[in-house]
């Protein structure tokens, strides 16, 4: 998934799109190493940062990983699932719609 997402982010540079991760790894240092190694070029929330009272995945009722959610510009959910290609297609389609309406 990393290379796919990396090229998506590159393709979407300067366009009305943001890829945001919610990372659920326990070891923060290790995952920072992965970010470097895999050239991960998008921002991620820590799912359960130290001192947090609840995790993001709980609030979003995520029970399987990876889960992908696509939100429109009003933050309404337009896709939720596990299919990367489907999510990317949906996001691209919506970005094009915004660009066409300008």
């Amino acid at each position, binding site marked *: 998934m990393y290379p796919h997402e990396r090229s998506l982010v590159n393709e979407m540079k300067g366009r009305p799109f943001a890829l945001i*991760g919610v990372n*659920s790894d326990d070891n923060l240092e290790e995952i920072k190493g992965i970010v470097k190694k895999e050239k991960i070029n998008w921002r991620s929330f820590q799912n359960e940062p130290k001192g947090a009272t609840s995790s*993001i995945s709980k609030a979003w009722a995520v*029970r399987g990983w*990876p889960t992908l959610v696509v939100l429109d510009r009003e933050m309404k959910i337009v896709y939720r699932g596990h299919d990367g290609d489907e999510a990317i297609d949906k996001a691209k389609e919506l970005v094009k719609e915004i660009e066409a309406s300008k």
Partner: protein
Amino acid sequence: MLRFKETAFALALVAFVAGAGVAQGQDRSAEADKLYERLEADFRVDMEKAMEAEQAKVEAWQAAAKKAKAEGKPPPPMPAMRMAPPEDLMTKHLGFYEKAAAQFAGTDEAIRFLQMFIMLGSMTKEKERIGAACKTLTTTHLKSAQLADAIQAISMASMLIGDEESEKFLRAVETGSPHADIRASAILIRATDKLENAPVKSAEYAAAKKEALRAAEIAEAPAIKQEVQSIIDGREKVVGGKVAPDIVGVDLDGVAFKLSDYKGKIIMLDFWGNW
């Protein structure tokens, strides 16, 4: 019922072993503790060896494919990925857990050995032995407070002994356990599959939801109530067409930010982990 997804057996198993290793009761004999840890370590070593063997197979294929490409020949067929652990490995460790359960037969200490026996055995063809272990759990140990973790194993056994048998055992727990949270878990485990997968508008989903809410009501542990709410929210609230909840958090560098900082753009949210 809980089912194995098509996933590399090793990952799944390691997760089960890790999961089964936590949250045990407090007053258990040091002897059982030690034995459990040893069996777990032995199993881990064997599983790692099996995984390495798998990996070596793939690497050998990769090398052969590379060589074939360099020589302009067609690549060799990819080796089949193993979806289940080697049978002899499982048989061996099943034997260990069975023996340990027998050693502590009739006491609470036997429960976690039975649990592991059922979890591992569910991936084999040992239908009779696994059924018998489920029966022991739900008769001899029916009143035990230690049954909480073990009932998940009964759900897992459904893939070997069948949904009907597995449900029978879970119902025995539901009616016979003196512990509210164990009764609630038994109900919830039965309802989970339909609750997670049946179409939200179907009668099946409605029935499963009713059961799950009943479990939440019986439960004393907040975790069980939350679990029910989380599954239902995932199916009904945080779904297509609804406005997403905002996220206020920190990024991997500890810098605070909000999801709504990106409002106005199309956002793709990826719940990920590097495992």
